[in-house]
């Protein structure tokens, strides 16, 4: 249904693709990554006169250079993945949950509080279960509040969940001041450093074994939930068209609140994993912006939780690499961030070419319908 234009046809036209085969889509993404490496290489050489190959080696070294570094990379990947898995159902329902940051924090605060209070009186396994349940409940509450307002009064969930982040940050600041240790440090310090009470135990001899197991179970579970369960089907329908959902007798209110309860719960649990399974402390930067980065993870993976594993790994890999090149080549932090930025820009940009075709002047819209 093109309109007739006067004058000359524009040089480039953009048309929405009717659809693209999976291999072709991945082909475009691989080309994007390669292009981004070339452009970053040019940038590196232009600014620092360093050999780009060496810099890339250093990036790899930063992420996987030693066994310890590898495990840190894996730990952080799992963290990001966990939040991404939590966001998947909300975004699939087209509920813009920008509040993962707050949901993670509030789960983390509860975990830290219980760990401090009952570290001496309860055995670690019991403590872990209690902390997990409480963090799930806290995240759940943080998700259900904006969902209820949206379902009942049709408030804007983007703003609401964003505001909830600030509430969580303020609560965290308050708790940090309350639990300050040692006095004057303005931090909580490592909780139960001597007893390690409430810390994740080693699994298969690995410090972060339990993190991996928990998150992978969630990943598989969420995949099945979204794809094969009745709830997952309802989420798909609501995300596609609210009117179709009403037509089919689906209660949009119920699905909205239930889905955000699940989304918030998983993000809350991510807070638990961050505190009990990794940092063993709490601060306002415990979530560290991952609540926002995870949105990219969820969207890029099109809510396929298995694809999210790869994307989380890529993002964490780049971040670790950036830190490494900054220290190894004495580069400014910002230089390495620019490289990460270039690579992300190309990957995100490639989605445009997957969804749209660019047609040169004079070319016919071949498969246009």
């Amino acid at each position, binding site marked *: *249904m093109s*309109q*007739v*234009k*006067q004058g000359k046809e524009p040089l480039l036209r953009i048309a929405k693709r*009717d*659809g693209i085969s999976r291999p072709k889509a991945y082909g475009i993404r691989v080309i994007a990554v390669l292009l981004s490496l070339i452009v970053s290489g040019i940038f590196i050489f232009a600014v620092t006169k360093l050999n780009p190959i060496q810099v890339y080696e250093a990036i790899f070294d930063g992420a996987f250079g030693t066994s310890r570094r590898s495990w840190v990379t894996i730990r952080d990947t799992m963290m990001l993945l966990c939040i991404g898995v939590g966001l998947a159902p909300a975004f699939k329902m087209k509920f813009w949950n920008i509040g993962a940051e707050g949901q993670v924090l509030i789960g983390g605060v509860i975990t830290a509080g219980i760990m401090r209070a009952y570290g001496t009186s309860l055995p670690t396994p019991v403590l872990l279960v209690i902390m997990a349940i409480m963090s799930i409940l806290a995240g759940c509450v943080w998700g259900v509040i904006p969902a209820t307002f949206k379902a009942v009064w049709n408030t804007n969930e983007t703003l609401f969940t964003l505001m909830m982040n600030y509430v969580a940050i303020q609560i965290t600041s308050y708790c940090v001041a309350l639990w300050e240790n040692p006095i004057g440090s303005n931090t909580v310090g490592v909780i139960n450093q001597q007893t390690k009470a409430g810390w994740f135990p080693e699994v298969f001899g690995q410090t972060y074994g339990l993190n991996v197991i928990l998150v992978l179970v969630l990943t598989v579970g969420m995949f099945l939930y979204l794809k*094969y*369960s*009745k*709830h997952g*089907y*309802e989420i*798909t*329908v609501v995300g*596609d*068209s609210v*009117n*179709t959902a*009403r*037509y*089919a*007798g*689906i*209660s949009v209110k119920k699905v909205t609140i239930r889905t955000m309860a699940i989304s918030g719960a998983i993000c809350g649990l991510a807070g638990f994993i961050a505190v009990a399974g990794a940092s063993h402390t709490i601060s306002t930067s415990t979530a560290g912006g991952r609540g926002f980065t995870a949105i990219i993870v969820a969207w890029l993976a099109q809510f396929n939780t298995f694809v999210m594993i790869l994307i989380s790994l890529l993002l964490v890999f780049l971040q670790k690499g950036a830190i490494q090149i900054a220290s190894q080549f004495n580069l400014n932090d910002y230089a390495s961030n620019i490289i990460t930025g270039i690579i992300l820009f190309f990957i995100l940009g490639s989605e445009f070419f997957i969804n749209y075709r660019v047609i040169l002047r004079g070319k016919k819209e071949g498969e246009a*319908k």
Partner: protein
Amino acid sequence: METVAAVQLKNITKRFGKVVANHNVSLDINRGEILSLLGENGSGKTTLMNMLAGIYFPDEGEILVNGKPVTIASPKDAYDNGIGMIHQHFKLVDVFTAAENIVLGLEEEGKLDLKAASAKITEICDRYGFHIDPAKKVYDMSVSEKQTVEIVKVLYRGAQILILDEPTAVLTPQETDRLFDVMRNMKADGKAMIIITHKLHEVMDVSDRVAVLRKGEYIGDVLTKDTSPQALTDMMVGHAVTLNIDRPEPKDPTPRLEVEHVTVFDAMGVKRLDDVTFTAMGGEILGIAGIAGSGQKELLEAIAGLQPMQSGASIRYRPIGHPDNKDGVELVGKTPLQIKRSGVSLAFVPEDRLGMGLVGSLGMTGNMLLRSYRKGHGIFTDRKAPKKLAEEVMEELDVVTPSVNFPVRRLSGGNVQKVLVGREIAQKPSVLMTAYAVRGLDINTSYTIYNLLTEQKMKGVAVVYVGEDLDVLLELCDRILVLCGGQVSGIVDARTTTKEEVGLLMTRFNKEAAEA
């Protein structure tokens, strides 16, 4: 005519893909004249006027303003030629005042002088008899005030030729009268005006001349004083065409749905249905005719449990085989799920196929699941039965799709419709409601759908068929209910009625004449 016409359209043709919206239309519009453009839905009135307003560009033909050929490629070109259009859907910025909206987009030298603009607006208002407050924000305005702002906006830009697209659709009778007064003032001032409408009494009331379009073709024009509503209806609907749709006699019709006193207001507070009462019989096809937006959508949605109704409404369902069941099942107040759970098998093919009936991102299987996903215990859905159903529908209705998992959004309109109709009929309904079931379908597919509906009728299903093509309604249905402005203006026997009778009921002239 001693002077040259204000606007001349010569041999205008406009196509959208395969659909011809206007075919070889020639039309003159004179200064100091109000011309009515009359035609059924989809007859191409708005498309034709959009070409004058610079929204579309004609594929063939030329436009002359004051005798000179012009190119109108954008709304700005239209303004430069003194043409202004008041669209059916207002294009105003809610948070701006009337004056701000009116000057919006004007490229004038120097500083923005709202005071001077307000003065000019007041002057325009005084001249033609409008009332608006230039400082009032649009979000505080009534529909009629917004329309006034739109008209002043056009006049402010110096328009000599005004096009009003169904301006009265959103107005009360009093507001309509006021608008017509203003239009007469503008006419006296030498403006040329075109009013798109399908309300015949308004045509008779306000216009000097009537031009009729039918299915994109220009039928002719007549002076209003020389014509009658009857003659105009004949021009509008044309002669009956024989379609040869197979129509068996209804099989012992029994009351299935008794609809009483259904009144519906929309979110804006406009009355969409006004005390609608009728009975749909099992074993017959009840056609619903009416100009678009006469309440068809609201009526079907009310029955399906999707539309809140005013108190006093009752929709009583009588199960098959229990004609004497005095109570039946009351549907008013129930959600779609509750209706389903109370044993009422209601199939509904809504007008907005992808927006309401289907899940565009899912394939046929996923869409078959929409009606059955709750079946079975456990948290997981059963996909085998819907997959089998999808394959059956694909086979029986010749749905063209690469696979049953291919997103239905990417199928063609006809195939989308087949998926929806196939699923709804597979429910083995006792009531089947369809809205514009054949819109956008080719002839063969349309006949497939007609046959399916007749098949359902012969199984004793109460079929409700909302249609826009009168020829089809006359040949497919057993009875036809005609809606006009949310009211039932008549229920006629489809076998004995004529196209003209239905056409008149649709524009309600007959009832008003009776009242007068």
